[in-house]
């Protein structure tokens, strides 16, 4: 099963890829649409003690307990108030200990776009103070720059409690 999904993703990555884009402040980010489980409106979460500050807490997603990550806090952006328009995107990641579901809080969902593999450019190095390890690449779509997120890298040890194997 897992292999099939991975194969699908690989196949898609070779040609063009459908990406779900969302905004955080003035910036636009994209995630592979095959990883998106659900998009839902903001609702208060249950806090988790001793969790990193960007892990807001957990939500009940049809019976399973799903951690929620605030991407603004993860990227050290200015904190925004949660409004009814704030959106939670539920994504699934492959971690060394199996599939994990988690939600990310974003300002709003924009669009679904097709990104050709050839349009994706690697993220430039900014030096030590800007971490780009979870940016898979940059794509220019209709004049806007979209940052494509590598969510497996993004959601690592702080959610799963297991350090990600870089080779995985």
């Amino acid at each position: 099963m897992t292999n099939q999904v991975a194969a699908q993703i690989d196949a898609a990555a070779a040609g063009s890829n459908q990406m779900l884009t969302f905004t955080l402040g003035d910036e636009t980010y994209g995630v592979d649409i095959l990883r998106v489980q659900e998009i839902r409106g903001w609702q208060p979460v249950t806090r988790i003690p001793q969790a990193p500050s960007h892990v807001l807490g957990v939500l009940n997603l049809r019976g399973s307990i799903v951690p929620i990550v605030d991407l603004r806090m993860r990227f050290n952006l200015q904190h925004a108030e949660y409004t009814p328009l704030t959106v939670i995107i539920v994504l699934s990641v492959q971690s060394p200990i199996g599939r994990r579901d988690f939600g990310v809080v974003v300002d709003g969902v924009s669009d679904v776009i097709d990104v050709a593999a050839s349009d994706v450019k690697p993220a430039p190095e900014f030096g030590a103070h800007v971490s780009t390890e979870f940016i898979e690449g940059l794509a220019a779509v209709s004049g806007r720059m979209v940052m494509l997120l590598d969510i497996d890298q993004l959601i690592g040890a702080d959610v799963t409690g297991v350090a990600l194997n870089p080779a995985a």
Partner: protein
Amino acid sequence: MAIDLAQFHDAFFEESFEALDSMEAALLQLNPGAPEPELIGTIFRVAHSIKGGSATFGFSEVASFTHTCETLLDELRANRMQVTRHVTDLLLKSVDVMRDMLRAQQRKEAIDAQKVADLQFDLELAIAQKNQPAPAAPAPAPVVVAAAAPAEAAKPGFAHRWRISFRPYPQLFVHGNDPLRMIRELSELGELSVKLDGNALPSLEQLEPESCYLAWDLTLDTDAAREVVNGVFDWAEGDCELKIEEEAAPVAAQPAVAAPVAAAAPTPEAKPSNVVNIADAKPTAAEPAHQPAAAAAVEVAPKAGATDGGSIRVSTEKIDELMNTVGELVITQSMLTQLGSKFTGHVAEQLRSGLATLERNVRELQESVMRVRMLPISFVFSRFPRMVRDLSGRLGKHVELKMTGDQTELDKTVMEKIGDPLVHLVRNSVDHGIEMPDVRAAAGKPQTGTVFLNAYHKGGSITVEVGDDGGGLNKDRILKKARERNLIGPNETLTDDQIYELIFMAGFSTAEQTTDISGRGVGMDVVRRNIKELGGTIEVKSTLGKGSRFIITLPLTLAIVDGQSVAVGTETYIVPLITIIESLQLKQGMVNRVAGQGEVFWFRDGYVPVVRLHEVFGLEPRTTQLHEGLIMVVEGEGRKVGLFVDDLLGQQQVVIKSLETNFRRVDGVSGATILGDGAVALILDVPGLIRVATQRLAA
């Protein structure tokens, strides 16, 4: 069209293990001297079906060993052999060996061949000793029992006369074959005359007891066809030289088979003194030994007392999934009920009545699913008769085990974890509790001590009692030991309950002599910890000279916990009810500060530290004033703390969900649950929380 037999292996192993359990149970019920034929029949069928199964799947070692067992059992069944304690012991050991062998096969590991061979030899010896003259226990010279061997004249009325030359290789016994049994089987087919060839027998000094030196020439007048005769020697195939030839029998209705008489039967010159007649081995009347293995398995498989209606094996994962879905259904239903109460008008009444029906159905569904996971505790209890028997034998004590309530049901996951603590307690009772027979007699008690196991439901939990009518706990000795080990101060005075409590402390063992059975001081504290981990409690009651009783209370299931919901700030937490001792409100001035830091208050008979939940979890509480909130005294791993919360909300049963499915372990939290409004509440892990809090205080 080859069928891959491997796909049936799991079923075979599972069935075999179950069958061995029932064989063990039957063996334990077996009365030496006056065995019940039905029990022997049961035991025999188990051995037979395992033999058949393992032969089918090519586990030849198992098949060969089981065959020897079967031989012995056959002797017992035919009353040719007495059921003695020695024989039962051998058979019980055989059960262990078969279990080991099957387990080794299952894990594809090597079988402990030496152990198997040793026991197999013992079994054969037992068979042989009961049946003089014994081919397996070679005598210096074969003994003539009766020389009246009607070898010459062919008996009329039989279709065939088979001349059988049976010359086993020396290793015949190693593979569990018993020539005597084969010969007896032949004798049941018709008229048999036997000539023993003992020429190869060495002198006594050179004799290897595990080798076969004997050979036989047999003449069989029978109606049985060649296949049947051949079948008798099936198991010995490869272990002997076998020739079966037909001699023209003087019978009119002889079928015109081209018998290979031409190939001259090599009848060796057997000395007259070597002729042994075993015709006195009477064939038993009913011999259901050859009923199909499948039929035997069906008869054996149902557990004692288990419902003998149809049953299916379902993986626990599937049941868990079902439980999850039902849990969801409960939440959705409660949401709908809340919503339904807001409607007004004529249709709303119908809606509400429909919702009420839904609620009832959902609850029934939830209970049914819960019950699927429930198994009778006899699954755990069934190992004890054997254990008590073995232990008492080794210790030279007379112990009787009484078990009641073994049909009491509890969750499978709880059952899996309660086995070891119970084994420990029962072992302790036999080893330390019950006195030696002479001590008992001197104390005016019956020589046979009693260990009892009792299980029953009480409220939403199950209580298991392990007790004995032995010496009871010796308070003075416990106190002395505790002082020696500095577990208590030299002048401390303790209540009885506190003294008994000491035996649960780590590194405590009062046995004067530690034995390999119990008493290494790693016992009772582990027992208590295991039970606590299950959310249960253990207490002890004891009277010196009369015996002691351990009372274990466990939740029926691990999937649901009785909880008290508490509010801290905007958050709701669930505290497992079993950890709560008391909830109280502190008045101003009741709290003292230790070294200006830790807050403590006097509770019952000691000072208890205050743990502010909002501080541990970093929350914004409604109040930081202790007298404005509530203190909940909770206990974990023997330590009490006063948990400071804003408010108590209510008690409810909650379904436990793991945080680790999508997140990771969190200290002080054992899981999460979904409340009626769909929100998530964390369930506190009280022992973990106390650890976290103490670390904070220490830091």
